[in-house]
């Protein structure tokens, strides 16, 4: 998976700095999405999706600690979308009361 060291500068340039940088904005977006889902009642109505989101956020932070930012970004993106799904399902659950 890792490119040959000689290609790293070119790869990084081609990749654009976004992939190599710590995905701080994405991390914040994922955290915010999880918070919204929790406020909407996802713990009750979308437990699985919310737990998935939280677990992926936990893994995101581990990848960030390991300074491997590509998988960190992927997991953060998945955490965010899981949280968005959890939020919608929570609202559905609440509207059905």
């Amino acid at each position, binding site marked *: *998976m890792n490119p040959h060291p000689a290609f790293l500068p070119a790869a990084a340039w081609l*990749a654009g700095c976004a992939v190599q940088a710590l995905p701080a904005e994405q991390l914040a977006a994922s955290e915010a999405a999880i918070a919204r889902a929790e406020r909407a009642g996802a713990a009750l109505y979308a437990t699985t999706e919310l737990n998935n989101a939280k677990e992926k956020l936990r893994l995101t932070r581990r990848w960030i600690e390991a300074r491997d930012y590509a998988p960190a970004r992927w997991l953060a993106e*998945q955490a965010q*979308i899981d949280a*968005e799904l959890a939020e919608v399902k929570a609202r559905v659950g609440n509207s*059905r009361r």
Partner: protein
Amino acid sequence: MIRRPSLLVAAMAITAGCAFVPRTNLRLEEARAAYRQAQADPLVAELAGNELHAAAEAQDRAIAASNSLDDPAVVDHLAYLARQRAVISRETARLIATQRGLIAPTAVARR
């Protein structure tokens, strides 16, 4: 998303002497199925058009990655996002329909 050519797969395709055909990707099939379900639901087009469009775009990104010599992990990831987008569009339609009283607020078995 960054392209990371899967050199091993490319080498195998070349040595096999046949055109490269993307392997069946389970996640991608799940995404396709989820999107088809969303498309087939008239309530989704009517009440969650934006979400359905977002799902279509996510679907296109996943398929494009699959059709190119992209890292299978990237394809899996994009396919997962696409699948979730499709499910979100259905749930959004369900939410709006419930709020507007278009469907009865009874518990419905999920998937």
